[in-house]
Structures are given as C-alpha cells and as structure tokens.
C-alpha cells in the first residue's frame, strides 16, 4: 500500500509536466486534466487514509524508499517518503482543498486565455506541497519547500503583464528565500551535529546534542517558518501576494502553503522541546504576528488584503500553539486544518464577489451584496462565523484550545501569551465583522460612480486592466464555483466539532507529536467565557462603526494607527528604506568600485606601462648617433663596473 505514496506526488507532477509542455493543443482540455489529476491524488490519499485507519495507532507510519538522491561520503540524502498521521492530515487537506479549488478555478479562470498554464502551475504546487509534507528528511523537505515557493512565485505573478503582480511575485520569492537560508543553515547544522538530516535519526538523537546547537537549529528552522508562513519579521510578502488570482490566494496563501511553517515546527517538535529558549522565541513570534496581522486586517479596505491580514494572524495562532510544545502541537495542526477550510471558503467567497463585481476588490465599493449573491453570502457567512469562533463552529473548537494552551504554558509567559491570544480573538471578531458588513450589508455603494481611492492606489490598475469602468452587475457565480464553496462551508461548520469532540484529533496525532496537558491557571470554562465576551465586544464595535453608519466610499484619513496599519504597519517602508535603497546604493557603489578600483588598478598599471614604454620609445628615434651614445654610455658603465669590481 505504501508504494502508492509516490503516486500521490506523481499525479499532479504529471499534470504539471503535461500542461506546461503540452502547448496550445491542450488549451481546450487542460483545466480538466489538471483537476482530474488533483482529484486522483486526493483519491489515492483517501485510499491510504483508509489503509492507515486499519492499522494500530503506533504502526501507522509508513515509509517508501525510492532511490538514493545525493550520496557523497557521510552525506547521504535519499528520496524517501514518510506517511504518518501528521503528513496524512496534510495530504488530505492539500489534495482535498486543492481539488476543490481546481474545480472552482475552472469557472473562475474561464475567460483567461492562459488557463492551461494556470492549471499547470496549480498542479506543480500540489506536487511540491505534497513533497514537502511527505519528505522523510529535511533536504527533501527543502525541495518541496522551495518548490512551493516557485509555484507561489509563478501564481502570484500569473498576470505578469501587471507590473505590480510581477513585483509582488518577486518580493514573495525573495522574502521566502531569506527564510530558506534559515532552513539550509539548519540542515547544515543538523549535518554537523547529527551527521544526518533524516527526521527519525535527528529527532531521535536530540539528547546527544548540546543545547546551544539545538537552539541554533531551532531558531534557524523558525526563520524558515517565518518566511514561509509570513510571520513577523518576514511577513511583508503576504499582502502583496494577493495580486495573484483569488483561487491561488485561497489555496496557497491561506489554506496550505503558508501553513508549511507550522508543519515544520510541529514536525521538528522533539528538537524544539529540547531547546526551550527557541520555543519561547517561537511563541513570541506567534503572539506578535497574531496581533500584527489582526491590526493590519482591521485597516485594509481591499477585501483580499484584509483576509490576508487575517491569515497572518491565524497562522500566528498556530505558531504560538506550536511554540508551546507538546501542549499545543495537536491544537496547532487542528487549527491549521479548520483554518484551511474556512479561510479557503472565505477567499473563494471573496473571489466569487470579485467575479461578480468586475474584479473590484475595494470593499468600500461593495455593500448590500447579499441579495445578489445568496450562495456566496451564506457560505461566506458560515466561514465568517467559523473564523471568529462562533460556538459550535470549527474555529471555536480549535482557537479556544489554543488560547487555553497558551494560558497553560504557565507563569508570566502564560498570562502574556494567553492575553495576546484573547485580544487577537476580539480583533478577529472586529475585522471579520467589518468585512462582512462592508461587503454584504449596507447600501449598494457600487452603484455610485467609482472614484479613485487614495488609500489603495495599487489596486486601481487591476480594475482598469481587467474590467471596465462600467457599473458592475453583481450576480451569483456559476455552480462550478459555488459547489466548492458549499463543500468548504460544510467543513467550516462541522470539522471543528468532528475533531474537537472527544479529542478525536488529539488522539489521532498523538503518536507523532506527543501530547501533554498543561496545568492552566484558569479553567477551560473561564477561557471560553472570556473568549465569547471578547468576541461579542469585537462584533459589537464593528457593528457600531460599519453597520449602523453608512460606509464612506472613500476611506477617511483615519488615525495614525489606522494609517500605519494600512501601510502594513510601515514594514514595507522600513524594508524599502533600509534594504531596497541601501541595497541599491551598495550595488551602485560596488559597480563603481569594480569599474574604477578593481579594474582601475589593472588598467592603471597597464596605462602606466604604456606611458613608460611611450617614453622609452622616444629613445628609439632612428638616429644612428643616438644609438651610438647609448652604446658609448654602456661602454662607460661597463668600464665603471669593471673598475668597481676590481676595487671591491
């Protein structure tokens, strides 16, 4: 049965190869090839899942060795896949949500002439992501890691004719590369520490290594996770990544790829457990990001960017949970899965809205859409309820557990982390309600003549390029788009309860991640109550601001914090000034140095040699008498030398 593992990856990889090399003649059927192969991968995943369920909990992990990849002396990298409960969870999430989004894209990208290529990239992404979660060693994981980065690059920049998209794609890849440096250094450190970088031997030998080294490895892994999962300080690419087509945002930048960092941390749990300092850093990063993302999400008027802020924030929750150690691993993954459902659903809903609104993304030009898009409204609304943690829905179960676990960390840290998580829950309620109200309720602002929005100047070309200035005619999306939304809405509603009740998910993952109960200073019921109260506060404030009052079509200037949040809390400005400008100056001066100094030394010596020979050339004037002088002078010198030698 485990021989099927390779097929999981092979199916979408084949799709990518066929679609990208196939040329124009596949244009007509390309999207179906892609979708079918994604679905095939899902089916294989389900088969393997069924097989796994049939085994005892401790014997569920299987490996498949394909071939020796890089054999050099002590450095042995193999292409080996490992399917255990953790990767199984991911496989199902990736292929499941992935297949749905393939289906959705068939409708969404219908009018794009490069649809075949889009599906090729999507399939490539699936293959790379599956490789990431199925790899049995860190180096192979690295391949998938960069592979998803590539797919993300290609998909963000899918509309390459837009300079903003191309720039965003490049930015995403570069920021991710910074994270990748962390991963490669981590692998190198593992190699010098353990002599290997396969999961089992490394994680099994943690006891033998010094804590300093382990902390270093863990911090480097965290850097990698920050890059991929858009955590502070490497979060800046995620907002720009929304330049990509919306299904991409749903699949890659919400449900799957961005959670790879969480996967990495949970997968390396044993390592982090042995490096408490690093764990503390992980929790801090998670807490900071969850607030950061939430604040940014509160200020954005672009629906996708607001959701992107939300994604950042939710992943912050997961990273926070993952940093808590065995108390939180399972909950991190659980939140990851439920988040995968509802965030994908939300993005697909946003895509559906844009689809009906001529690709308008500014929420200030939405309003009152619930009448025109009932299915979208309902599915989006269910996703909304799930994400804010409405009792009974998915988000409630997973997020609540994380907040509890944060308190269970104990000590001052526990209070701070728990407090941050609670505050985040309130903020989540606020910004999601804001999105909901601005989009589906209130007056129909899109009827007004669209005017330039000063707050989000970069969204303007998008609307101009693809659509017209004509007044949009909101309409419900075709069934091929709504079906995935409905399926995901089901997931958003029931997944949490299914996993949470009776700790089913916890027991499923326990053999891989281990679990221990923390001793929380506050009872679970108190936390839940506090969460609910804060939730209500958030929703209430949002309602007062956006539900009761009409939403201005042009964003008001806002407070300092709002303006900063609109600009991603000035992180881009910082990057621009320090890294981009500084880098430009550095390269420019280096080019100058290369030309004048490095080359100049050589050219200068050549020139001085040339000058010297030019001088010497004048001695060679062609007059026999001049030559005679030199001969005579030479003779004199010879005599002088002879005399000198005699004298000495």
């Amino acid at each position, binding site marked *: 049965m485990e021989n099927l593992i390779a097929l999981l990856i092979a199916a979408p990889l084949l799709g990518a190869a066929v679609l990208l090399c196939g040329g124009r003649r596949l244009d007509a059927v390309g999207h179906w090839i892609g979708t079918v192969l994604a679905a095939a991968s899902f089916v294989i995943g389900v088969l393997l899942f069924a097989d796994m369920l049939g085994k005892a909990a401790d014997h569920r992990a299987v490996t498949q060795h394909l071939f020796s990849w890089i054999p050099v002396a002590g450095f042995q990298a193999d292409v080996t896949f490992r399917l255990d409960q953790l990767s199984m969870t991911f496989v199902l999430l990736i292929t499941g949500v992935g297949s749905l989004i393939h289906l959705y894209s068939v409708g969404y990208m219908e009018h794009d002439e490069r649809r075949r290529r889009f599906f090729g990239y999507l399939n490539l992404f699936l293959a790379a992501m599956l490789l990431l979660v199925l790899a049995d060693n860190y180096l192979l994981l690295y391949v998938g890691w960069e592979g998803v980065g590539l797919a993300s690059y290609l998909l963000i920049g899918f509309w390459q004719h837009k300079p903003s998209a191309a720039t965003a794609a490049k930015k995403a890849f570069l920021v991710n590369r910074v994270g990748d440096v962390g991963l490669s250094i981590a692998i190198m450190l593992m190699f010098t520490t353990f002599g290997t970088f396969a999961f089992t031997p490394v994680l099994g030998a943690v006891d033998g290594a010094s804590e300093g080294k382990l902390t270093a490895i863990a911090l480097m892994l965290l850097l990698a996770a920050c890059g991929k999962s858009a955590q502070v300080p490497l979060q800046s690419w995620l907002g720009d990544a929304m330049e990509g087509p919306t299904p991409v945002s749903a699949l890659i930048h919400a449900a799957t790829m961005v959670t790879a960092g969480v996967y990495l941390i949970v997968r390396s749990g044993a390592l982090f457990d042995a490096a408490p300092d690093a764990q503390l850093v992980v929790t801090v990063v998670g807490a900071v990001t969850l607030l950061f993302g939430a604040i940014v999400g509160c200020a954005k008027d672009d629906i996708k960017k607001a959701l992107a802020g939300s994604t950042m924030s939710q992943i912050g929750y997961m990273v926070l949970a993952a940093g808590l150690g065995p108390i939180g691993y399972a909950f991190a993954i659980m939140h990851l899965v439920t988040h995968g459902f509802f965030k994908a659903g939300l993005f697909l809903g946003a895509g559906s809205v844009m689809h009906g609104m001529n690709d308008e993304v500014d929420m200030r030009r939405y309003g009152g859409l619930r009448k025109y898009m009932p299915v979208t409204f309902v599915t989006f609304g269910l996703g909304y309820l799930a994400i804010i943690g409405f009792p009974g829905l998915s988000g409630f179960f997973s997020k609540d557990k994380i907040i509890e676990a944060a308190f269970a960390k104990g000590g001052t840290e526990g209070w701070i982390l728990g407090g941050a998580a609670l505050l985040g829950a309130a903020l989540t309620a606020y910004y999601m309600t804001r999105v909901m109200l601005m989009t589906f309720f209130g007056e129909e602002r899109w009827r007004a003549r669209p005017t330039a929005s000063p707050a989000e100047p970069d969204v303007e070309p998008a609307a101009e390029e693809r659509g017209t200035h004509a007044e949009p005619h909101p309409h419900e999306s075709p069934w091929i788009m709504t079906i995935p939304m409905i399926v995901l809405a089901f997931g958003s509603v029931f997944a949490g309860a299914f996993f949470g009740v009776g700790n089913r998910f916890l027991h499923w993952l326990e053999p891989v991640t281990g679990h221990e109960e923390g001793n929380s200073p506050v009872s679970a019921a108190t936390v839940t109550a506090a969460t609910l109260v804060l939730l209500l506060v958030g929703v209430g404030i949002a309602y007062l601001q956006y539900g009761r009052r009409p939403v201005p079509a042009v964003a008001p200037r806002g407070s300092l914090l709002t303006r900063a949040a609109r600009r991603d809390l000035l992180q881009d400005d910082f990057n621009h000034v320090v890294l981009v400008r500084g880098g430009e100056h550095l390269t420019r001066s280096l080019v100058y140095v290369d030309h004048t100094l490095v080359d100049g030394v050589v050219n200068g010596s050549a020139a001085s040699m040339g000058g010297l020979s030019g001088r010497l050339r004048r001695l*060679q*004037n*062609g*007059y*026999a*008498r001049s*030559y*005679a*002088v030199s001969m*005579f002078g030479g003779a004199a010198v010879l005599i002088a030398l002879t005399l000198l030698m005699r004298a000495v």
Partner: protein
Amino acid sequence: MNPVNYLYLAALLFTIGATGVLIRRNAIVLFMCIELMLNACNLAFVTFSRMHGNLDGQIIAFFTMVVAAAEVVVGLAIIVSLFRSRHSASVDDASLMKL
C-alpha cells in the same frame, strides 16, 4: 718621463674620437673620427709592445691598419652611394631604423 704617458695620450685621443662620432653628422667626418679612434688604439698597442718587450703589439697594430683601410674603402663607398640616392652625407638623414 714614464712611457705610460703614451697610454694616457691614446686614451685621450680615443675619447675625443668617440665624442666626435657622437657629435658630427657628416658621415665623412664621422669616419675620420673613427680613424682617429683606431689610431689611438694603435698607439696603445705600440706602447704595450714596448712595455712587454715583444712585437705582438705591433703586429696587432699592423692588422688594425689593414682592417682600417678596408673599412674606409667600404665605408666611403657606402657614403658615396648614399649621397647619390639621398643627396646628403648626413647620417641623420638615414634614420630608417625607426619604424
């Protein structure tokens, strides 16, 4: 008087001749200066012959004279043919050694 003085005289004449070669442009005078140098050498040889009490020095001087004669014959022929082609006896006019 010490016969070494003949050597000093020879050295002086040789130097004057050499300087003349360097200074004069007229090929004929130049040749004369060369003759002067050769004669200075001959004087030295003759003096050495006396100094060592054998005739080998004189033999060398004799050969020098013969060679000088041959040299003058060829050299003057060269000057004449040069003058024919260039209408000048200046050695500077034959500065073809430069590219």
